[in-house]
């Protein structure tokens, strides 16, 4: 039954091969999309079936436990949602669409493999598979503005990405040098004995850096605004949400390495968390491009997520996981609206959303729910997640951090609210209604319901998250 252990990855792998063949022929974007979408939906089902699988593969470099399987399910679901609502793929030329879908699938494959990796090189390869596919997606946007903005973004993305990778590899080489192994299982006990040595701390911090880059934690955040702005709306929707879940999953696996004497790591995480929150929220206040704004808000949210990691406890990790899943959903809801409102795949400024409630009441509602949720207003998931993060961090004795995070909530409400404000203010009447397909409507209703349900009834999911985290520790 080893096949079942690897089933989600196999589905994606086979799917990528099919897409590769498709992309060599003269097939339009719609057909490629149909293939990818069915692949994504099948993958969600397979992930569901394989949820309770356990075991290890490839000389123990690859572990399948409840934690990895749950994250795989979430990643696959996020992938499917992005595909469901990006039906037109407005910002991408039709002739490169098959390739676009190919690399999107490969990136998902990389993420899915990442969360099962328990060996440094496997981890590295999975991460790069996902990253390089993403680097390629950014410049695929068509050049309507003539500014070649997407090229600039792609170059920035790849340069920052490669540097972050370099930092991570450097850290891994330290880990290997200190312990003589690349397997986390063997590495952990040996590392615990030398936690007092600066080399070990620096090594862990550098390895974390690679994932901080994915999650857009300060100071690895500088790619975010430009890439968000330069990439097409659909690409940004993916980059902004799905990889972050995998990044948090890996951060949980890795910070668990630092316990119990990881005080220096805790301090580092606290500093990064505070910097991310303040930097993200304060800069987001003055943004006019909505994707840039969401980019900075993403940096702030990364800071909130770290609140769970600093606890170094099961509750905190579970809260982080819960929060990032909630963030995935609120973010997807927000990007769904952006993708639909943008008529030809152009970027939207906040003012472009003026009067959206008259053009499409459902999208306006979705956007409002998404914004209020990200701001952490009940009864939405953002509040429940933040509440758990704060409780966990307070419990672990980080009261100043909790207060700073609470103050940040108050700062952030201004820019989220300004989006809601324009959405519900009277706009120019001449703008046509936004055309929203049935599927996208259904997706947005489902997202809104999930946002509310996760905010009001977190019990079940929190238990799942706790159980998953327990599998790692």
């Amino acid at each position, binding site marked *: 039954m080893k096949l079942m252990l690897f089933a989600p990855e196999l589905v994606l792998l086979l799917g990528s091969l099919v897409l590769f063949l498709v992309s060599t022929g003269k097939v339009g974007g719609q057909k490629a999309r149909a293939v990818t979408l069915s692949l994504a939906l099948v993958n969600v089902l397979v992930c569901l079936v394989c949820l309770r699988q356990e075991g290890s593969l490839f000389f123990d470099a690859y572990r399948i436990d409840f934690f990895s399987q749950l994250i795989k399910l979430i990643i696959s679901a996020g992938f499917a949602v992005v595909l469901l609502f990006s039906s037109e793929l407005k910002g991408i030329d039709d002739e490169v669409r098959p390739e676009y879908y190919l690399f999107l699938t490969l990136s998902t494959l990389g993420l899915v493999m990442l969360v099962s990796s328990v060996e440094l090189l496997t981890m590295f390869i999975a991460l790069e598979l996902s990253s390089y596919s993403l680097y390629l997606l950014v410049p695929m946007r068509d050049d309507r503005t003539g500014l070649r903005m997407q090229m600039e973004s792609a170059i920035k993305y790849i340069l920052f990405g490669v540097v972050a990778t370099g930092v991570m590899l450097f850290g891994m080489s330290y880990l290997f040098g200190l312990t003589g192994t690349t397997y986390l299982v063997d590495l952990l006990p040996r590392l615990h004995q030398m936690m007092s040595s600066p080399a070990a701390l620096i090594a862990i911090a550098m390895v974390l850096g690679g994932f901080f880059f994915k999650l857009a934690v300060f100071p690895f955040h500088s790619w975010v605004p430009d890439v968000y702005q330069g990439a097409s709306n659909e690409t940004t929707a993916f980059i902004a949400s799905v990889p972050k879940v995998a990044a948090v999953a890996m951060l949980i696996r890795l910070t668990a390495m630092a316990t119990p004497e990881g005080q220096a790591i805790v301090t580092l995480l606290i500093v990064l968390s505070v910097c991310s929150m303040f930097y993200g929220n304060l800069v987001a206040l003055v943004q006019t491009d909505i994707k840039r704004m969401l980019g900075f808000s993403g940096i702030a949210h990364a800071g909130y997520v770290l609140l769970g990691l600093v606890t170094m406890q099961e509750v905190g990790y579970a809260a982080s996981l819960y929060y990032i899943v909630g963030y995935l959903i609120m973010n997807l809801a927000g990007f769904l609206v952006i993708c639909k409102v943008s008529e030809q795949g152009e970027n939207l400024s906040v003012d472009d959303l003026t009067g959206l409630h008259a053009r499409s009441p459902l999208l306006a509602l979705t956007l409002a729910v998404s914004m209020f949720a990200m701001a952490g*207003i*009940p009864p939405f998931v953002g509040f429940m997640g933040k509440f*758990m993060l*704060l409780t966990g961090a307070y419990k672990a004795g980080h009261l100043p951090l*909790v207060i700073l995070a*609470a103050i940040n*909530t108050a700062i952030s*409400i201004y820019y989220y*609210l300004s989006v809601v404000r324009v959405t*519900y203010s009277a706009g120019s009447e001449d703008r046509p209604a936004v055309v929203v397909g049935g599927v996208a409507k259904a997706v947005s209703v489902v997202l809104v319901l999930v946002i509310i349900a996760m905010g009001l009834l977190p019990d079940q999911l929190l238990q799942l998250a706790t159980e998953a985290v327990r599998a790692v520790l």
Partner: protein
Amino acid sequence: MDFLIMNDMGFPILSALIFLPLAGALILLCIPGDTAAKNWTMLVTVITALVSLPLYWNFDATTAKYQFGEHASWISALNINYTLGLDGISLLLVLMTTLIMPLCVLGSWRYIDKRVKEFMICLLLMETSMLGVFMALDFILFYLLWEAMLIPMYLLIAVWGGPRKVYASIKFFLYTLAGSVLLLVAIIGLYLDQGTFSIPALMGQDYSTTFQIVVFLAFFLAFAIKVPMFPFHTWLPAAHVEAPTAGSVLLASILLKMGTYGFLRFCLPITPEATLAFVPYILWLSVIGILYGGFTALAQQDMKKLIAYSSVGHMGFVTLGIFVLNQQGLEGALLQMINHGITTGALFFCVGMIYERTHSRELDSAAGLGRYMPVYVSFLAFFSLSSLAFPGTNSFVGEFMILVGGFTSNKVVAACAIPGAILAAAYMFRMLQRVVWGRPVNPDHSGISDLNIREMVTLAPLLFFVFWIGLSPEPFLKVMHVSVSHLIEQVGGVTGGEAVSIAKLMIP
């Protein structure tokens, strides 16, 4: 669970009250047509009001325990429960909320002409969260509803508001939210100290003084902004002026009460030592609020702004009554919360009715309306008299009790509050004089119609309560006696002589 008397009425009456408007809002989503939406909302709010009436008959006024209790596990991982209950402090507030809602719907019948359905949904969502706030006995449930309420209220101002609605709505949201983020931290702090979010279980525990003071300050910031106490009041006039009539009424009648309710429910019983330590400052802040609100109201040309500033003054009386910490003061404050809800709500309806006719709220353009709208000005006169605490009306009883309480505990503070009552007479008579007898300056009012039946029906119940409470307050006071005495025990029971003497030293 010794603080909770479980509900034995055969059906979960408190849950029914919370979920009826919510269900009504969901069903309303599928009801097409503006008139149908209005009728449906009217029906839902009236049913909710009728369902709430048995609360009064079945309320046991001889116990300070929470009644009609409901308890269910909600988030087991953090020991968060869905606990509801009513005591003498919250009973009248709940009844006032359910009774004012149908009037809000009636008052918006013609005022709201665009996006009626969404407006009604917002009203129903407001009702759910407002009722929930007064009934919740679990801190997280309370906080969830307390914050969630901001969304429909924000939309009420931002979508259906006046010309400066954007500024007003954002100011309202930011102020209230900024105030309550630290409330959440304080709640978590209490939870980590005691391991529970149950509000009654957190009362009367042995917290260290420093902890109490920190928690009290976090509470105080949130509630003082909501009340609003001077100097946190600046959001209020803006929000009132721009909000639609129903929004102003909800804001004045119910939302402001949540601040003072918060003082009564949380600050006093959970952090008694800190309360005693801060009493002098809060009393003086209240006095400043009373005088400041009165003077500012005296200078207003916009009728809504005038009433908004008068609210600052009236709520100053309420906080004064609460923090003198004796039976008369607290009961007077509680009664005055109800009175203010009735009277100020009615005054906002009155202003809205003029605005529907003349599209102006300026005192000058409303001058001389009395000649053409005799019925209207009779209503206005009674409500204005009530607002300035004329004997025989409801506010007189409340303010009188507060002042009696004030004089028993601290003569200087109480004496300083007296001019507030005179100021109230001044600004209210100034408004009355202009509207009833003032000469029309520019517009010709001759074509203007007097109140129709719907508008009279909106105002009549409020007028009825003005006189009922004014002439015979006993039915309202008797339900609160025991709960208020219990509250005083909770505050005083833990005190040494120490804290009181600090309070005495602070004020000569």
